């Protein structure tokens, strides 16, 4: 029995069974089914990861294997990096279901059904080796996510979040489909390896450049890269916490993974001569995204919206990593995504604990109120340090690989900028944690925007009969896994090998279309050297310093504050004003971004 289709089939079948019978079985049966199905899917994804260590698992649905090296059917192409992301999706989904047990006072069967279909779609999207199949899973994933974001539909914020999310992402999906149509028209193929083979020996022409720009736009809208990111902060701030965990921890990163997944098998040959300019564009967009996300996070007081902008900041770091277009950087980005997904998931769960225990998610109103949930404070501290890349925990091996790779391709300016972006995001998380759990900092800060509406319910003073471990257990578990992942022996070296296999287009094409064995990779250990430790230390110390700056900025002597304050007030207000919350503006920015991306590619590709 082949394992590959099970990653999609298990959650889909469980969702179908729940749809049919869930109403009659009661809430706890729904919860248990969700936990069991998500956990089983995680196990399958992990097994796929372990079985694909030495060669890809290519599964052709319905037995439609390639004839004479030409793809006829639709394939899943499992490599360790993609299977790792699928396993992350399953693990976060499991933690979300466990958390939801105690988090929701009441929740319908539809919630579990949507979550399970969402998981199936994410797994299919991560593993599919066929461009149109990717689109179908992309849309399935989107529709589930729209509905889940708008789950608490009687409030205004989820309405706004879901509408902005749905409209913006649908336009993005249309552009993606336009790109797929153009690629199919040019190559007659939809299989990623087959597209690459059809483009062998061709020079990039106008049509291909437009098609590639459209594909990139579609995936970057999903990822939330600037200027396609506006929907993300509205949607993630409005979604229920268990949904946020999955959206922020893995869905955004799937958009970027898709960029790597289409570039290497399909387009790396035809754009080989233009890799330098493509690298400059992607890394530039990544740095812009990282800095905008970190800066906007600093100006938030609504904890969920704050973490949404932290997510955008980290999407920027990942885009820069993937955009370096080297095997170590791809390996580093994937390891970073895995550790970061767990850490961000844990942070969202910590906010969920506060929302549950104190019935509030506002940093300023919660100042000094963290005593109701001390474990959430531990999660905030660990999460902040994890996001900063404290060596040797969590995200450190990933960022070390990215730093090394940036220096190797001559982008020596990139590591300091990425460190600055980590400082902004991690410092803001530490600031919020220190204000809430230690009562530090000023009670008011007028430069922070959007005061979330106060809760109508009374705080949960008396611990209920069900023990709170069901709330803080998943949060701490995600933190421990995220931070501990770095201690897997030899992971950085192995991941680099997998990334080399991912990027070896001729060998990969032969493997998918002819079933050939991949080139054996020599074992190579990765020694980070001194530079990544220095950057890790700088960004950790910087994040702590930035947290104190955020807390006590207004107590600095007046002569120190005046000039920088005046210089930054205008641009900050303008940046905040751009995030208007109106869907028309967001779609206009999307159009501008797509045109800019296409224009830059057209100007630089020869």
């Amino acid at each position: 029995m082949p394992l590959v289709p099970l990653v999609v089939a298990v959650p889909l079948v469980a969702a179908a069974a729940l749809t049919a019978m869930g109403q009659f079985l009661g809430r706890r049966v729904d919860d248990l089914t969700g936990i069991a199905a998500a956990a089983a899917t995680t196990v399958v994804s992990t097994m796929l990861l372990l079985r694909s260590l030495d060669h890809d698992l290519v599964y052709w649905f319905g037995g439609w294997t390639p004839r004479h090296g030409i793809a006829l059917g639709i394939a899943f192409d499992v490599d360790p990096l993609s299977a790792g992301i699928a396993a992350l999706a399953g693990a976060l989904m499991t933690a979300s279901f466990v958390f939801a047990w105690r988090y929701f006072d009441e929740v319908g069967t539809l919630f579990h059904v949507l979550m399970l279909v969402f998981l199936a779609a994410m797994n299919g999207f991560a593993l599919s080796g066929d461009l149109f199949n990717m689109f179908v899973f992309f849309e399935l994933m989107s529709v589930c996510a729209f509905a889940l974001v708008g789950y608490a539909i009687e409030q205004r914020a989820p309405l706004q979040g879901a509408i902005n999310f749905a409209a913006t992402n649908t336009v993005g999906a249309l552009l993606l489909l336009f790109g797929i149509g153009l690629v199919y028209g040019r190559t007659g193929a939809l299989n990623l390896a087959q597209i690459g083979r059809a483009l062998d020996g061709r020079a990039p022409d106008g049509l291909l450049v437009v098609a590639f720009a459209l594909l990139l736009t579609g995936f970057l809208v999903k990822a939330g890269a600037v200027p396609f990111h506006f929907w993300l902060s509205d949607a993630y701030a409005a979604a229920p916490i268990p949904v946020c965990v999955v959206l922020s921890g893995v869905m955004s990163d799937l958009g970027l993974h898709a960029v790597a997944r289409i570039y290497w098998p399909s387009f790396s040959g035809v754009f080989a001569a233009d890799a330098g300019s493509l690298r400059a564009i992607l890394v530039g967009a990544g740095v812009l995204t990282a800095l905008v996300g970190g800066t906007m996070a600093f100006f938030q007081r609504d904890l969920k919206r704050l973490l949404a902008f932290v997510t955008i900041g980290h999407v920027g770091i990942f885009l820069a990593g993937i955009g370096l277009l080297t095997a170590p950087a791809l390996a580093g980005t994937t390891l970073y995504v895995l550790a970061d997904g767990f850490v961000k998931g844990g942070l969202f769960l910590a906010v969920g604990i506060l929302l549950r225990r104190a019935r509030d998610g506002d940093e300023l109103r919660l100042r000094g109120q963290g005593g109701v949930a001390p474990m959430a404070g531990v999660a905030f501290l660990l999460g902040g340090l994890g996001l900063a890349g404290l060596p040797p925990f969590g995200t450190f091996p990933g960022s070390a690989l990215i730093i090394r790779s940036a220096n190797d391709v001559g982008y020596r300016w990139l590591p300091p900028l990425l460190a600055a972006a980590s400082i902004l995001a991690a410092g803001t998380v530490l600031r919020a944690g220190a204000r809430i759990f230690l009562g530090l900092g000023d009670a008011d800060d007028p430069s922070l925007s959007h005061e979330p509406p106060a809760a109508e319910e009374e705080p949960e003073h008396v611990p209920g009969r069900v023990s709170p471990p069901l709330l803080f257990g998943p949060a701490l578990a995600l933190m421990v896994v995220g931070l501990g992942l770095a201690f897997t022996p030899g992971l950085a070296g192995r991941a680099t090998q997998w990334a080399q296999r991912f990027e070896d287009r001729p060998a990969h094409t032969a493997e998918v279309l002819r079933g050939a064995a991949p080139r054996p990779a020599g074992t190579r250990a990765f020694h980070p050297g001194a530079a990544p430790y220095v950057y890790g230390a700088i960004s950790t110390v910087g994040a702590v310093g930035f947290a104190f700056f955020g807390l006590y900025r207004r107590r600095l002597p007046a002569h120190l504050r005046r000039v920088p304050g005046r210089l930054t007030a205008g641009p900050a207000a303008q940046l905040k004003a751009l995030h208007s919350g109106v869907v028309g503006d967001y779609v206009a920015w999307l159009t501008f971004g797509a045109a800019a991306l296409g224009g830059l590619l057209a100007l630089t590709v020869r």
Partner: protein
Amino acid sequence: MSYLPYALAVWIFAVGLYGVVRSRNLVHLVVCLSVAQSSTYVLLLSIGYVNRGTAPIFADVPKGTRAVDPVVQALTLTDVVVSVTVAALLLALAIQAQRHAGTTDPDELAEMHG
């Protein structure tokens, strides 16, 4: 094969997109989104079109009969299903917006910003 169908697809997309950007009513916005979506049908079908080709049904026809590309038709069909789902979901959200927020104007719904 002329370039006209491609130009038409781009035009329909641009018209729909303009409507989405300028929309002051959610129902209008969903209709504009559907207009933009229909441009992809035009694009996909014109990519698979073959001059003097028949429908791609290979029963009772001699071997080697010219037919249009069935793959893009399958893609279009999938695309129709997807777009109907999205439109239905957005219209449901529009109803909820009217019911709970008393407005269908995206500008007035924008509670979170900055």
